[in-house]
């Protein structure tokens, strides 16, 4: 699983158990439990999955299978400023690929990675429903529309 080992604090373990219990420790609610845990921790490291496994009495392998199946779940922490580039069709035909290349170059990371200083992470997503503004970039909750490769430096500057 993930190479970074983390140590869960006592209150973290309790929090996970609490979340699982709020769904009646029901194995069918696994996806809801994972959503809530990711909301709380920001990501789903192996250690968190272990606690869920115990609470729901579901094999860890199955939880890992579910976490890795769905792209919304992540096992690596996101950066403080998660950058997402829409690669939906509308954005693609309006040049999203070039914008993505520019972000990769500026941040020196690939999609799915986080910068060493933890400030930015890069991901691509499929249509945020703002196709009229294509190509669309999101940094955290903020949406940028009609982004050109030349705008990338300025956008990143806002967060430095």
């Amino acid at each position, binding site marked *: 699983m993930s190479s970074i080992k983390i140590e869960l604090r006592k209150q973290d373990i309790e929090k996970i158990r609490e979340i699982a219990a709020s769904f009646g420790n029901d*194995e*069918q*609610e*696994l*996806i*809801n439990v*994972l*959503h809530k845990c990711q909301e709380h921790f920001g990501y789903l490291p192996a250690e968190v999955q272990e606690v869920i496994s115990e609470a729901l009495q579901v094999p860890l392998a199955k939880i890992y*299978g*579910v976490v890795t*199946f*769905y*792209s*919304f*779940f992540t096992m690596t922490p996101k950066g403080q400023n998660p950058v997402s580039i829409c*690669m*939906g*069709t*509308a*954005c*693609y*035909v*309006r040049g999203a690929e070039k914008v993505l290349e520019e972000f990769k170059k500026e941040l020196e990371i690939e999609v799915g990675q986080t910068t060493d200083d933890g400030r930015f992470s890069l991901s691509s*997503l*499929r*249509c*945020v*429903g703002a*196709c*009229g503004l*294509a190509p669309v970039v999101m940094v955290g909750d903020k949406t940028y529309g009609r982004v050109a490769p030349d705008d990338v430096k300025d956008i990143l500057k806002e967060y430095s």
Partner: protein
Amino acid sequence: MDKKIKQLRLVLRNCGFIDPENIDEAIARDAYLSMGKVITEMHPAEAIKIVKESGLRGRGGGGFPTGLKWEFACNNKADRKYVVCNADEGDPGAFMDRSVLEGDPHSVIEAMAICAYCIGAGEGLIYIRAEYPLAIKRLKTAIAQAREYGLLGKNILGTGFSFDIELRYGAGAFVCGEETALIHSMEGLRGEPTVKPPFPAESGYHGKPTNVNNVETLACIPVIFSKGADWFSKIGTERSKGTKVFALAGKVNNVGLVEVPMGTSLREVIFEIGGGINNDRKFKAVQTGGPSGGCLTEEHLDTPIDFDNLIEAGSMMGSGGMIVMDEDDCMVSVAKFYLDFTVEESCGKCAPCRIGNKRLYELLDHICKGKGDMADLDRLRNMSEVIKDTALCGLGQTSPNPVLSTLDNFYDEYLAHVMDKKCPAGQCRGLMEFFIIEENCVGCTACARVCPVNAIAGERKEPHKINKGICIKCGACMEKCKFDAIIIQ
């Protein structure tokens, strides 16, 4: 030109006219009136008959007759049944369902209750993408308000009919829009499809009869009961009734949601409502049906849009994405774009889809890089046919459509890539050449110094030259040049 002329707001009837967080405003525009009528005055069989007569077909992509689907679920006896609303909307570049859920959540809730009454279900589930936080919030509010008014819950309107709705969240997997995968996902499993039959109407959620309908399909239901099956079936074409909402995007002047009667032509949507192509460029293609659909050309522009015509033309209705492309778009790259999507979203359960689509993608990539030959075009077609015939679920069965339709409609462009090693649209970098314009070059040597393969030669203060044989097309020189002397062609 009046943008509204050709449009007919039926699914979007309330969007923008009501405060979606206030049930009174919805009720003022007749929300729950149809439900009241159905559950107090009609026998389920009678109500199903009306849905059948309306000619409504599923808007989630398949176009299956809704009334018939309800009848199957109704006829399958069980102690429990479920009504599921499919709000997974995975087609990238489409957001019709999201707009309905955000703008008029009560229409979906009302329709689910009508469906539940018809098939004999007591519980409803809405499977919605976690990426739609506002839609989730509005649905939660709407459900709570409906409960408060006794329009959901036990003994609705004193009729003895009980029905309630819960939300289930998706987690970013396109294949979960497929109904069997969706049901597995709601059960807390990986969202992998299973072979049909059994259809959900026989054995769905928890193995019980389950009726799955798309958001837009459901949004039509209250109107059918308030205005009558006859009224509804007068709109549209012979075999496709009512309206369809499209998310118009790409290189058109007016982008956004468009709702038109079935049978409207692509030309009317793109040129009249959409206001034509951006920057006066030339129309090249329109893609419908998302990753399952195809690219249509100029010659299809006057085709009346309906389920059957689009399939005949080599595309499909899909959920309603409509992406317009102009002469700057390379159709081989577009096909590659969709395959990239499919490869990423394939659940991996069956080999034709998992491996076949990957091979298709590699072939297209090969061609875009100028390494393809004629045999590759045959390989593309053969492989596509095999995947279509052998994949387990709808994702794999339709994933080669973007390839097949571009091969059919833009064969010349493929030929240009493999024979002349040229990309007519100027998109494929691998097929282009870097040039130094002599007049602009001042001989600063910046390009020569940055070139990783020493492909640039020239004396200081003299125009430089790129050796095409050595150049690996990395683009580094172009970026370095301060005098715009380097171009790609």
